[in-house]
């Protein structure tokens, strides 16, 4: 087990180097660079940069250097000094921009993932053990609706409901008056009153799909002979269902825990934009639009680290839960 972990951890290193390089290159692939985008933005506002000014800025930011040199400068700073570089657009260190939002992103993501599982697993198991019952059909309808309605639409509907019926101020994660206030009980309450919309939106979409997955897995597993053996041992239906087929049916869930991490970090950008959430998604979108390559590159690097680490976590969890993987 320890050898397996070490091997996996070591393999993560070349993977990350490769991914970070590719992502750095891809960000630079579109014609023009940050200065072009910046100049275009200025022109939009009625100002303009002269050729000389543009050239000076390129010189200043080192944009004229070969891509390998730029990459090396960026990555060596990260590795040696933990410095993710400077966001050209925000004129601020990348790390301060990202870490600030990372906490909230992780909070929302984790919360919605926990909710997704709390909904999806019992409902999936119920739907499978009572296949073709009234509730199975109801959950199926819910599943297809949840999967079919785009997240941002659901977010808009909930915001509208919250605003018109519950008289809440919606959007964002905090009411304006709390934004720079110190953390107090009231502030936490305020946060929670905003948090439910993104959590419901994200959990509905996720749960809808996972219910179907869980139901299908359970139906597969419950037809297998070991389930009959468990019944023949004299165990009750509840003991059999939760102790045997659920254990096996959870495998696909466990093996995708890892993907949840990066997906939640970058994903649901549209929902975050609609809800005006100070999470990482909208920031990444903006950075890519402006070719703010240090910010975007750092994002993608963190994302890849999450993916690699997440996959590792999944594999470890899977090995822990399934002896066939542990001893294979």
């Amino acid at each position, binding site marked *: 087990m320890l050898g397996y972990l070490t091997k996996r951890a070591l393999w993560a290193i070349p993977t990350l180097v490769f991914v970070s390089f590719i992502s750095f290159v891809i960000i630079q692939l579109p014609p023009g660079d940050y200065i072009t985008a910046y100049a275009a933005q200025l022109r939009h506002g009625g100002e303009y940069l002269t050729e000389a000014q543009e050239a000076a800025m390129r010189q200043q930011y080192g944009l004229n250097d070969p891509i390998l040199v730029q990459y090396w400068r960026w990555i060596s700073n990260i590795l040696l000094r933990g410095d993710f570089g400077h966001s050209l657009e925000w004129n601020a260190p990348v790390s301060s921009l990202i870490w600030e939002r990372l906490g909230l992103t992780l909070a929302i993501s984790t919360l919605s993932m926990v909710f997704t599982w709390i909904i999806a697993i019992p409902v999936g198991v119920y739907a499978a053990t009572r296949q073709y019952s009234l509730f199975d059909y109801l959950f199926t309808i819910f599943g297809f609706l949840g999967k079919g309605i785009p997240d941002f639409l659901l977010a808009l509907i909930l915001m509208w409901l919250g605003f018109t019926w519950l008289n809440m101020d919606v959007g964002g994660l905090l009411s304006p008056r709390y934004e720079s206030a110190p953390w107090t009980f009231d502030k936490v309450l305020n946060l929670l009153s905003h948090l439910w919309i993104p959590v419901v939106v994200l959990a509905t979409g996720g749960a809808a799909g996972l219910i179907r997955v869980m139901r299908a897995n359970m139906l597969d597993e419950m037809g297998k002979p070991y389930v009959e053996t*468990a019944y023949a041992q004299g165990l*009750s239906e509840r003991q059999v269902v939760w102790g*045997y087929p659920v254990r096996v049916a959870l495998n696909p869930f466990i093996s995708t825990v890892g993907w949840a991490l990066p997906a939640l970090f970058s994903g649901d950008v549209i929902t975050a934009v609609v809800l005006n959430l100070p999470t990482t998604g909208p920031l990444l979108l903006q950075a890519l639009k402006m070719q703010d390559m240090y910010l975007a590159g750092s994002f993608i690097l963190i994302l890849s680290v999450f993916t690699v680490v997440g996959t590792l976590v999944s594999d470890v969890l899977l090995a822990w839960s*399934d002896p066939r993987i542990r*001893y294979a």
Partner: protein
Amino acid sequence: MSVNTTPMPPERLLELDDVHVHFSMREGLVRAVNGVSYHVDRGKVLGIVGESGSGKSVTARAIMRLLSKNAIEAGGRIRFRPEPGKEVEISSLPRDGRQVRELRGGHIGMIFQEPMTALSPVHSIGTQIMRTVMLHRRVGKEAARARAIELLEKVQLPKPTEMIERYPHQLSGGMRQRAMIALALSCDPALLIADEPTTALDVTTEAQILELLKSLQAEMGMAIVFITHNFGVVADIADRVAVMYLGRIAETGSVDDIFYKPKHPYTRALLQSIPRLGQAPVRRLKTIPGMVPDPFNAPAGCAFHPRCAYAVPGRCDTLVPEVSLFPGDQSARCHLAGKLPEEVL
């Protein structure tokens, strides 16, 4: 046939009376078990022989009340005597009720055909046995563990103390079937139902498992219902034999009577289709013509008549034969039972 209501004789362990199990399918109603009666005495081995689809396994699952949800328990009575002087009518208990669950695993153990998939892949052998022991014997973890080790030793698995930590995928087919047997016998059941326990194994392993079952039976004294499609296996292990065809018992009797004095043409035909030691040399083994009929359209009259060499038109194809009794507790469901011409078997 009316259901017999007299109390079971004292040596009786299990008695099935006119049991019917139907399956409601989209294509129609399948009468998988259509009036089966058999009995098992304490400590005896009953072999049940029949082709695929004859209802052997379904009958066994009816005893355990393990039928699938679309099964209709359409009648009949199943009685069981978990201990002397006590009688339980299994067929009248609620399907998943506490009493049935106490019987399962506690008084009736079951071994399944596929040792590869019949054990939980995510629990160690020890955990699976211990869970049953703790459930029925209400003992602690340590006692259950000791019992599991003792059982694995009984089924002759090597290094039982290590074996309880193993998972099914780490064992060979024969070892898994031994573990399965240990699981089924974990609470000293009075009855063991073995549903084709050796069908999925190779011949050498099959012989070893049969030997093991025989020695365990001698040691622990449980009765066995041994389901198989292999007459050779039956001859090896059983005291009595029941031959099933299309949801009915065609013939039942002691092993010797079935092998040497079969009264049903189907039993005869089956015996003629397998080679025997000391048999007069023949060019070819006989086969039974035709196929097992489609269960949705079971033939009228005697279900075997379309394939029977002795079928009498106008009788066998219209009237369901009654059971004819013969000395030595042998019975056959055939219009011609006892009147068949002598034939070299």
